[in-house]
């Protein structure tokens, strides 16, 4: 039973609207899974079903072997959940809120105290302990939501857009925390910030209109990009046309894209055919033809481009239909 979370052909319909359509995946201990997709793709709905908030229309999910429909309370006991926007009881102080969560999570005695203190320290909540939650800044509210989710040291963490609305330092902090917690837990985070996938995720599942369109490692995602292994050169603007012509002649080069000129320089993206590794060939061509290069690097692939490619912009489809 290495998979702590198992989702099996899960579907959720709201009337005529199919929010989640036959979604299956599993997450093992020690894995941080990124759950990607455009807004309204069904990320939150899927998470709400796994956490037992919404019943599935068909299919099921299991958390540590407990079925969400047969044993919802057992499942909820084993999950730490940060709902979208981190809703909290605004009329409570941070400390009394954590006490409430600890009580309902059945933490008693010294263990309760120890866990509360751990969460407070972990999320840096010391200075706001006796403030009412509604008076806190967005960043602190999110941290209280986080503290609540990790309070009972769950094996499974489900975080709906954990870094949304945080400043860069807070984002960094939260990502570090997720990476660390991910060592011995199964974690699902939903996000539409693609850099997050590279920063924290071991795996990424992309869904679009309720369906899984991709399930793999971030490296595999990068490899799907047409810019995977492409070589980017920065050359002087006046030398660019000649350089582009030379580079285009190299075998296995599919195309050379010229970027917008910037301060007398322009960058050329040399895109390989079938994702081949062409840095050597490009290097040789540059030296042999005496092209002056300011900078040269290999791209691993652009995630946002892969994302767009897999989740076709719905608005575009609507426009096309008209």
């Amino acid at each position: 039973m290495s998979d702590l979370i198992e989702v099996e052909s899960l579907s959720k319909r709201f009337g005529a609207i199919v929010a989640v359509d036959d979604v299956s995946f599993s997450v093992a201990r020690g894995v941080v899974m990124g759950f990607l997709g455009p807004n309204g793709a069904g990320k939150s709905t899927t998470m709400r079903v796994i956490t037992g908030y919404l019943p599935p229309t068909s299919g099921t999910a299991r958390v540590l072997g407990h079925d969400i429909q047969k044993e919802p309370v057992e499942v909820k006991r084993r999950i730490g959940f940060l709902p979208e926007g981190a809703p909290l009881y605004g009329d409570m102080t941070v400390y009394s809120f954590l006490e409430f969560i600890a009580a309902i999570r059945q933490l008693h005695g010294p263990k309760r105290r120890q866990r509360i203190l751990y969460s407070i320290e972990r999320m840096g909540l010391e200075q706001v302990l006796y403030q009412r939650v509604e008076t806190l800044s967005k960043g602190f509210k999110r941290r209280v939501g986080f503290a609540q989710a990790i309070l009972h040291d769950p094996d499974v963490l489900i975080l709906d857009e954990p870094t949304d609305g945080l400043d860069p330092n807070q984002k960094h902090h939260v990502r570090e925390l997720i990476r660390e917690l991910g060592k011995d837990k199964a974690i699902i985070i939903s996000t539409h910030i693609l850099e997050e996938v590279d920063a924290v995720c071991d795996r990424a599942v992309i869904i679009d209109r309720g369906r899984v369109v991709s399930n793999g490692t971030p490296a595999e995602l990068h490899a799907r990009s047409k810019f995977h292994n492409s070589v980017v050169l920065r050359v002087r603007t006046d030398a660019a046309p000649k350089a582009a012509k030379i580079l285009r002649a190299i075998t296995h080069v599919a195309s050379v894209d010229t970027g917008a000129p910037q301060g007398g320089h322009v960058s050329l993206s040399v895109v390989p055919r079938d994702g081949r590794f062409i840095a050597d060939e490009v290097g040789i061509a540059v030296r042999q033809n005496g092209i002056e290069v300011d900078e040269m690097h290999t791209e691993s692939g652009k995630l946002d481009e892969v994302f767009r490619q897999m989740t076709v912009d719905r608005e575009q489809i609507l426009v096309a239909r008209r």
Partner: protein
Amino acid sequence: MRNVWIIAKRELSAYFSTPLAYVFIVIFLAGTGAVTFFIGDFFGRGQADLQSFFSFHPWLFLVLIPAIGMRLWAEERKTGTIELLMTLPVTTGEAVVGKFVAAWLFTGIALGLTFPIWISVNYLGDPDNGVIFASYVGSMLMAGALLALASCISALTRNQVIAFVIGAAASFLFLMSGLDLVLGLFRGWAPAYVLEMVASMSFLVHFQTISEGVLPIPAIIFFLSMITVCLFINAQIVELKKAS
């Protein structure tokens, strides 16, 4: 049971962390005092009882109970905390009962704070304290039934004002259902047994039978089953409404 109590404790402290609790208690106490002495003519009646005090409870509750009940679920849905609450290891039933218990306890506190009037009447004369006790029980039970109704309606909307207005209207119908005002709606087209059923739902009549001091079992059973039915429906509504 443990979870019910934990939720009830949180809810009860939520009442006292906002001005609502204090506003409510002050208005309730001022209101009961005003009607007892001015409209009820407590002194003029020259009788050592609290009839002029209790007979106005239904009308005060009509406005004040929906005000307590309106936030129970509407607020959870508006702020999104329902997603937090319902993904904690508690059942919907525990959450519904816990919230109701908190609101009922709060009403009990407000009702308990009317004790000076009980002291006054004992100081002035020699009242039948059994009747007074029974009236308090009846008042509490009626408040419970109205609260369960208000809680149920609160689960239907995320807007507290709507919850209040509909709650007050529904409370009015249930209070008055023994009177011609409501029965007239059914007379003429509904069969006699429906009329009888509607008439027997009257909170007012049941409250009066209890406050006559004989603690009639049917009236107590009526209020308790009213609470049970409303809370059961409440839980169903919460389940249904989560999806939307």
